[in-house]
C-alpha cells in the first residue's frame, strides 16, 4: 500500500483525475506530490480547451444530396426504383 502510494500517477490516472474519476487512494498521492499535481493541472487545462471544440454543420441540403444517391432496399432483396 505504501509503495503504491509513493508511485507517481500514470497518464491514465491523471486523465481519471481530470475527469473527476480518480480513486481516493491515488488522490492522496496527488495531494502530496507537487510533480504529479503540476502534471495533472496541465492536463486539466488542456481538457478544458478541448472541451470548447464544437461541431460544424455541412451546407444546407446535405441530406437531400446524400439521399439522391442512396438505394432503398426492398424486402424481396432488390432496391426501390
Amino acid at each position, binding site marked *: 500500500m505504501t509503495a503504491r502510494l509513493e508511485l507517481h500517477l500514470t497518464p491514465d490516472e491523471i486523465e481519471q483525475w481530470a475527469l473527476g474519476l480518480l480513486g481516493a487512494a491515488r488522490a492522496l498521492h496527488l495531494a502530496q506530490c507537487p510533480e504529479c499535481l503540476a502534471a495533472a493541472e496541465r492536463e486539466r487545462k488542456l481538457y478544458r480547451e478541448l472541451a470548447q471544440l464544437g461541431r*460544424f454543420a455541412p451546407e444546407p441540403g446535405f441530406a437531400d444530396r446524400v*439521399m439522391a444517391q*442512396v438505394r432503398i432496399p426492398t424486402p424481396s432483396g432488390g432496391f426501390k426504383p
Partner: protein
Amino acid sequence: MLRTYARFASPPVGAATSERGDGVIGAKDRPSDLSGASDQDIVAWAKEGHEAAFRELVRRYERPVFSLIYRMVRNRALAEDLAQETFIKVLNGIRSYNPQFKFSSWIFKIANNAAIDHLRRRDLDTLSLDGSPYAATPEEAHATALQLGDRAETPLEEVEARELGGAIDRAIAKLRPEYRACILLRHVEGYAYEEIAQILDLPLGTVKTYIHRGRNELRRHLEDRRE
C-alpha cells in the same frame, strides 16, 4: 393502436403494406417521430426499406461525421464531399452492417478511413497555416506554410479561417493524422479508448499511446503560441 419503436424494429407479420404490394410497411404504420428510437432500431427499419429511417441516420450523424472529417482535412468543400461519400457508402451498405457493433463506431470508421485515405493521397496535412508538421527547420516550415497575404481569401476560406482558426484547432491541425483522429474521437466525440481502438482498427495500447503523445504535442503547440 399504439406504435412503439420496438414494434417498428420487428414489424409483425401481416402488417399493412404499401399499395405496391412490395411488402414494405405502409406509411400509416410507421411512427411519425423517429428521434427517440435507438440507432439499432433505426438501422433495422432502414434495412426494411424505410426512407425515413435513412434520413434519420443522416440527421443524427451529419454534424459529427462532417466535423470529424472537416477537422481532419481542414477544407469545407472537401469535407462535405468526403462526408457525403461516407454516408452513401454506409447507407448503401446498410445490409452488411453487423448489429454486434455500435452503428456510430461503424460510421466513424468509414468517415475516418475516407479522411485518412485522402490525406495520404494528397498529403493535405502539409497545407497548414503554419507549415508542414514534418518540417525540419524554420525555413522549411515557412516554405510549406500557406501565405494568407499572398492573395485575397475566398468567402469559403474566410468561413474556414473563422471556424478552424482558434488556437486549439490550429494546434490539432499540426498533429499527425493518426493522433488527430484519436484526439477528436476521444475529446470531441467522447469515445472510450476501447471504442476508438475498434473504430481505428488499432491495438488498445497504440490508441493510448497516440492520445498521450497527441495531448503532449497539443500542450507544446499551445505553449509555443503563448510565448
